[in-house]
């Protein structure tokens, strides 16, 4: 955003009104990200305040390789993580990357598969929309939630997320996949069009002969349920 660059330049030149405008533009989004990390209102407030105070003090060090939005988002996410660790009685710095155990177990296969009833922008107009999104994210296991928030909401890279959480890159990827699939499942149960629900067992090359695993699954699925879902 070019006008954002101009605001940053003015703020660096000592113009408080420009700095305040930057704060007003980002405070709501950062509060949402911080809240999704700490899940407690006063902690989210602390994280956001700490982030902006840091930004104010270090504005001269901001080099504009990244956008201001990215810079301040990372500061806020890191502040929130610190607060969460402190609350848990853990050392404030992340443990060395890779100190965690590998994520085990199969990736759960999508179950409710259906196109959504409407475009996300239209769905967002409903009154319960925010509650639905909050509820879905709240129910994620914390280790999956944190990776989702850092990667998809705070736009940190896999490397940065691994560093911030002290986990391996491989675990970042697996946890992100689990988080995204769990959220997709939950939202599709609410936003999905039941009448267009698909089953996951379906035909692939060789299925005609009934010899592929998919064909066998499909057969057993039919035997078990024998109902009228759409089979593709």
């Amino acid at each position, binding site marked *: 955003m070019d006008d954002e660059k101009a605001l940053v330049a003015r703020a660096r030149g000592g113009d408080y009104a420009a700095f305040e405008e930057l704060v007003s533009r980002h405070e709501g989004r950062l509060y949402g990200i911080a809240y999704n990390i700490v899940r407690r209102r006063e902690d989210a407030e602390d994280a956001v305040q700490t982030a902006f105070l840091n930004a104010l003090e270090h504005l001269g060090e901001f080099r504009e390789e990244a956008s201001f939005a990215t810079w301040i988002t990372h500061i806020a996410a890191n502040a929130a993580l610190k607060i969460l660790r402190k609350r848990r009685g853990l050392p404030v710095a992340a443990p060395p990357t890779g100190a965690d155990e590998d994520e085990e177990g199969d990736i759960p296969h999508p179950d409710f598969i259906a196109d959504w009833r409407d475009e996300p922008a239209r769905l967002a107009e409903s009154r319960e929309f925010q509650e639905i999104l909050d509820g879905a994210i709240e129910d994620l296991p914390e280790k999956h939630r944190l990776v989702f928030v850092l990667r998809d909401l705070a736009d940190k890279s896999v490397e940065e997320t691994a560093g911030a959480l002290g986990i391996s890159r491989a675990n970042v990827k697996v946890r992100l996949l689990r988080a995204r699939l769990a959220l997709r499942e939950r939202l599709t149960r609410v936003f999905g069009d039941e009448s267009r629900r698909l089953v996951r067992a379906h035909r*692939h090359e060789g299925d005609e002969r009934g010899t592929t695993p998919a064909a066998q699954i499909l057969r057993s699925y039919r035997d078990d349920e024998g109902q009228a879902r759409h089979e593709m």
Partner: protein
Amino acid sequence: MKCEDLLRMLNDYVDGDLDPGLCEEFEKHFAGCNPCRVVVDTVRKTIAIYKGGKACEIPLDFKRRLHEALREKWKQVHPPREGGEAPRA
């Protein structure tokens, strides 16, 4: 490519980090597998919906405290110059 393979590589695909050759494999798979196409599409929508979510309004009392604290800090970092103009806070 089987559905399980696609599921494992789903993140790289939706994040645009996949090798172009593998992207073609995805497209081929979608042509014969509508459920996987719908799963990928709804994963994309899920991410987009969270990314694009309206920023929540921060609590009003917090907004007031935040801006007060920032103004105070600004005065410390940008003290008025001796005989110069007052800080613009």
